[in-house]
């Protein structure tokens, strides 16, 4: 595709490596060619590269697909997923999971972004329910804002919850912002 058609978050294939376009700066001095400065994130190792392109250049879009995977468990620095149709297992590195590990709960289904047969990124469900493992009774020093206190959920992540939440409660969390939504009342 033409470099002029690239926008943020398009996935490109450069020298055989898939990149996400994290940022794009358009400059066009005088009557010359447009210069596109791209911040590219290597989807395999997470490294950031800056690359400059000019108008008229062609780039290849990385051919990626999504497939549904179930998260099974963590082993050392790998996260192990299972394809829900073929039952094949996939290993994803900690670097690829990044901060999403905070809400990666055993058993949940995720959309796995694949480059060929290589997993490169996961998309969590927008809302996931978690059990609260630890949340001490509201004492001033532990409140993180006037309305919220800290609570540890079953993945080990700490989020802000209202003061009425107790250990053992089930809560719904928005995984995009990492914020508490509501308490789930068990029947």
């Amino acid at each position: 595709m033409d470099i002029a058609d690239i926008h943020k978050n398009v996935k490109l294939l450069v020298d055989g490596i898939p990149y996400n376009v994290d940022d794009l700066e358009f400059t066009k001095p005088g009557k010359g060619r447009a210069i596109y400065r791209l911040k590219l994130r290597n989807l395999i190792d997470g490294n950031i590269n800056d690359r400059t392109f000019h108008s008229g250049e062609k780039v290849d879009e990385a051919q990626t697909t999504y497939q549904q995977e179930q998260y099974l468990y963590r082993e050392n620095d790998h996260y192990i997923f299972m394809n829900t149709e073929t039952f094949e297992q996939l290993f994803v590195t900690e670097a690829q999971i990044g901060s999403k590990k905070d809400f990666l709960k055993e058993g949940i289904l995720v959309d796995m972004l694949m480059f060929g047969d290589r997993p490169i990124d996961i998309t969590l469900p927008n809302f996931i329910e978690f059990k609260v493992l630890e949340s001490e009774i509201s004492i001033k020093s532990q409140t993180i804002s006037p309305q919220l206190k800290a609570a540890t959920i079953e993945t080990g992540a700490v989020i802000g919850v209202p003061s009425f939440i107790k250990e053992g409660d089930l809560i719904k969390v928005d995984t995009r912002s990492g914020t508490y939504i509501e308490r789930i009342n068990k029947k």
Partner: protein
Amino acid sequence: MMDDECQRLLPLSSNLKQRALIYKLIRSFFEKRDFLEVETPVRVPSIAPEPYIVPFDSDGWYLSTSPELHMKRVLAAGYRRLFQLSRCFRKGEQGHLHNPEFTMLEWYCAGVDYRQIIHHTEELVVLLASAFGFNTTIRYGAQDIDISLPWPRITVRDVYMRFAGWDPIATPDPLRFDIDMVEKIMPNFSKDRPTILLDYPAFAAALARLKPDEPGIVERSEIFIGGLELANIYSELVDADEQKKRFQEAIEQIQCERGKQIAMPEKFLRAVPFITECGGAALGVDRLVMLLCNADSIDKVIPFTADTA
């Protein structure tokens, strides 16, 4: 009204008021100097073929990429001083300094060359700054910029020798020229003064005239302030044969690189022999407003960009 649009538009109010004032001041600046304000068509049957300016099609015609050809046709009839605030359209130009639809201030003055037009530009910016309460220093971003006259001038050859280590006049290389401009030249401009670049290589001439006795150089200037490319200035080319030759080359390049047919602007070429020696400028009004309002992106000085229209 939708809340989010309200939240976006209301904070722009002071910039939009300043913008309206800038229009008023620009008009009075040129009227005082005996320039006639004209309006030429926004939808046009032909445009100047330029390799890196892409037009929007409009039912077999184009949306104007620049008012230059039509203003020069008016000059050819014998008018000597013209200015225009016009909307221009350029496909694909979008970023924090670009919107595909933007406002250009364009003026032409008979009997002068690019040096006199540079003076006009300096005077205009200084006048606007003083109307906004700045004396000789404006603040853009976190930077104070001394705009006292005259602004520093440097030739394209000198600036490339100094910051890129090569001479684009002696060894013309258009691709390297454009990339180095962005990566090596512009980042090295002094932050606290405007920069006036003079005397471009002939391959970057477009509609500017060749410098007498200096082969390979055209009388073209670009003015930069605070990292913004503000104005493009020419001693205008009034040689119809030379103009036709350059257009032909551009048409072939566009055909070859973009696979697009652009028609030769014949009516304009017929007018060229009647254009008197003159100088002219194209100044980006949105960027001028950004500079005077200390706005870091174009969406802060117009109510709607291509993304929000």
